[in-house]
């Protein structure tokens, strides 16, 4: 790295101060602006590891490179096809959300979704049999979606027959996948596996998937990143509100769906399904975000987070400088509003790969752009504005492609820096849905949640060790 020229001595008109307020007061007393840091010691003392990582001469350049990679990532929808083709999933192989988890530790909704997938694939005839197979690992195995470059909302369970969106980042020659969104209520991703759930999955495989495939293959790749850029200016934060995104996507594919040659009754049903599900776009936004963050993975010395994901039991993160190593801690339970008569006791701990949206700078990080849903997640408009602005304090940069109008079109806060999280104690803000604790329940609410600090302190320790051996 070339040395910068000396920064000349001047009379400062502003001084950044951190620590004793008396010293900041003395600065202000001289008519000089004191830009005061609201400094607090971290709740847990990891000062030695933090110092090692902060002092790593590679860090700054590595994080700049990680940011640059994220900003330059592209995301276009190129195909829709079954997971068996797209990911090479074979009979009995399943994917799931979050870091690895075994049956013993799997939460209710994760177990429910795995049971549903086994039933859907016809591997078992009833839930009891499915549960036995899963408990013994007889003929079934599962691993995180992230291990295959895919993502899945909530339980995120993918089986070979399920159809997947396939997205490409040509700039980094990378591919990511996500299943098709089933809608709200009693759905597999929230751990429901009743007959209505399985029936819907069958229809999606038989009708919806093939129609979308025909439509997507008929035209140019669809610019998903471009839709995200527009939706964050239309009140969608891309995690708990995807209404504008869903309709813009439908606008892109609708003519080709009509022209697809499929029976008009099926096309009408598919259009009704997509337009009636405000979250349909979530499963396109998530793989786009995965492509963005994956572009920043594996840069030695970088402390930028590339994955945040939950399996309903543990929260796991991955960090650029430590590759595909997971740093996990028990997941928190979201706080927010509940559907019907459900209450806090019914909620399962945090679940889903959808926190990839926050990892990429939208979702909870872009809360300021979605005032319409602040009540839905139990917040207020000033909270939403403050939340997004607070996230700039723990990120390495801003994404001009995702500009937030209410913040004077400031770019979304992008690239969570582990050092900033550990030092400030400010955790990434995640907007999320809430799954029922008991297998088979489905969605019980939506709200706000943060990762456990243990993920970040674990990561800082590993980054510090990596400095020592670099």
């Amino acid at each position: 790295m070339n040395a910068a020229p000396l920064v000349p001595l001047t009379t400062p008109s502003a001084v950044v101060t951190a620590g004793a307020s008396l010293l900041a007061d003395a600065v202000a007393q001289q008519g000089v602006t004191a830009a005061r840091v609201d400094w607090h010691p971290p709740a847990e003392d990891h000062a030695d590891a933090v110092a090692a990582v902060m002092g790593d001469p590679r860090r700054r350049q590595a994080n700049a490179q990680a940011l640059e990679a994220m900003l330059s990532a592209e995301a276009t929808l190129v195909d829709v096809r079954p997971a068996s083709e797209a990911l090479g999933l074979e009979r009995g192989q399943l994917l799931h959300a979050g870091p690895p988890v075994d049956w013993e530790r799997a939460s209710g909704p994760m177990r429910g979704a795995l049971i549903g997938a086994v039933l859907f694939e016809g591997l078992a005839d009833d839930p009891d049999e499915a549960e036995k197979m899963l408990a013994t690992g007889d003929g079934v195995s599962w691993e995180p979606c992230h291990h295959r470059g895919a993502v899945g909302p909530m339980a995120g369970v993918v089986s070979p027959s399920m159809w997947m969106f396939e997205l490409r980042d040509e700039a980094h020659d990378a591919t990511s996948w996500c299943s098709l969104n089933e809608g709200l209520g009693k759905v597999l991703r929230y751990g429901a596996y009743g007959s209505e759930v399985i029936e819907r999955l069958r229809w999606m495989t038989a009708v919806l998937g093939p129609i979308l495939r025909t439509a997507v293959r008929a035209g140019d790749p669809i610019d998903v990143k471009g839709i995200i850029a527009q939706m964050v200016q239309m009140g969608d934060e891309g995690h708990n509100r995807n209404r504008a995104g869903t309709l813009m996507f439908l606008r892109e594919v609708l003519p080709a769906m009509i022209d697809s040659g499929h029976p008009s009754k099926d096309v009408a049903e598919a259009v009704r399904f997509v337009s009636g599900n405000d979250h349909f776009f979530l499963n396109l936004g998530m793989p786009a975000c995965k492509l963005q963050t994956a572009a920043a993975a594996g840069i030695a010395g970088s402390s930028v987070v590339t994955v945040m994901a939950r399996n309903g039991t543990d929260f796991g993160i991955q960090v650029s400088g430590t590759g595909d190593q997971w740093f996990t801690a028990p997941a928190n339970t979201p706080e927010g509003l509940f559907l019907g008569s459900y209450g806090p006791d019914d909620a399962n701990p945090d679940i889903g790969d959808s926190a990839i949206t926050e990892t990429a700078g939208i979702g909870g990080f872009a809360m300021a752009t979605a005032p319409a849903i602040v009540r839905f997640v139990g917040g207020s408009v000033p909270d939403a504005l403050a939340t997004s602005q607070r996230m700039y304090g723990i990120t390495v940069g801003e994404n001009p492609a995702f500009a937030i109008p209410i913040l004077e079109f400031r770019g979304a806060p992008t690239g969570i820096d582990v050092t900033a999280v550990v030092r400030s104690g400010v955790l990434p803000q995640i907007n999320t849905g809430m799954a029922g604790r008991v297998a088979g329940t489905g969605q019980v609410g939506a709200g706000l949640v943060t990762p456990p600090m243990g993920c970040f302190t674990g990561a800082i320790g590993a980054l510090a060790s990596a400095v020592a051996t670099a």
Partner: protein
Amino acid sequence: MTRSLTVRRGTYVDSVALMQVSRQISTLPGVTSALVAMATDLNLDLARGMGFELPERITPNEMLVAVEADDDTAMQTALAEVDRALSAAAFPAPSSFGDAPAPLTIRAAARGGEATVALISTPGRYAFADAIDAVDAGLHTMVFSDNVPVEQEVALKQYADPAGVLVMGPDCGTAVLGGVGLGFANVVRPGPVGIVAASGTGAQHLMTLLDGAGVGVSHCLGVGGRDLSEAVGGLSTVRALDLLAADDATEVIVIVSKPPSASVAQAVREHADKLGKPVMFGLLGKGRPDITETARQAVAAIGCSWELPPALSGQVGTGRADGSLRGLFAGGTLCDEAMIIAVEALGRVRSNIPLDPAWALEDSLSSDGHTMIDFGDDRLTQGRPHPMIDGSIRIQRLLDEVADPTCGVLMLDVVLGLGAAADPAGELSDAVAAATAADVPVVVSLVGTGDDPQDRDRQAEMLLGAGAWVYFSNADAARKAVDLLTNGAPA
């Protein structure tokens, strides 16, 4: 009498603000004593000293609230006031709709702003990371914090090298950048002298002496007391010299430090020779010029005339036979300079920063013969404010010395300027008067300028009124103290 001790988690307030809270609670009616402080070892000792039993598991990130009051009513009022004062201190005033929350890191505070300098006074364990953040933001970085490991100091200064910025500190108490004082700094006139200081109070004293002679300062760049050690190798001194060499306002450069290690001194001198501007060395030590003499030489170097700094006569007292000299300092370099002068006349002077390791005081800091204590030393400031901000420990010690029949003459420094207590002379005057009344003469070296917020002349009058001898030169004050001890004063 009733007592209450609680330990709070998750609340952090800096030590200076806590000192103000403690003081505020102590003055409530019916409250005999109060300590609101982070649970550092030193503060735990203080709480034990107040007679409190402490829980076993307690960390420095927790806060102690210890109150002793006459009755339950007074206690309740006191604890309610603690809550109110802490919440006022811990949380910034609510901002209006849509305002950005207060920045939580230096990076966030510097982003998009006009700041060119950072002033960091976070606890020593965290200061390195905060300083790196400031360097990353391209700011000249002053680290006021002490208790930063020397390895981190070296790493920080090496890290700053390619960034083109200066790291001042750690443990840098004083800087003046283009007339703006940072930390403990006196209000001095602008002028041609650039100062590089490995000593905060040494730099303050030099600046006030120059100002007294009508000579101004361009920049005073602190580098931290260890910068010229073998371990650090003068990394910041060299950078500061380069910055002053490139600065149009600077004509003469003065380096103020204790004598550095020979190899570092050699390297710095070689670097200084190539700057193209005169560089003077004010290196404090036996047989070397004192700070006052360095100031005189600097004034001469730019062709101005030197006048002796003012000295005001106080009360002699009949003195105590065979008494010894006791110096109680807030400034380490001022203590050092006084010891160098005193040792020449008196021999051994015990201290917590001894000139000779064999003269080190025991941990209790009890006086033993001629004794001088630097209350600003790292070990005495962990988790509590610097004595230039809160003089209470020193005042207590002053009274203890008066009660000690072996104390013959007292010497004190009073350092004025930005960042220092608002009225140090007012706080000291009762204790000084008590000393004078007990026939113990008190000599004060007063470091300040006419423009300092405390009003130097008023401070001098108060000290004089309490019976003290007041010197504007620390070296002269030390000589006077020795003189009073050995000869008494002319009537």
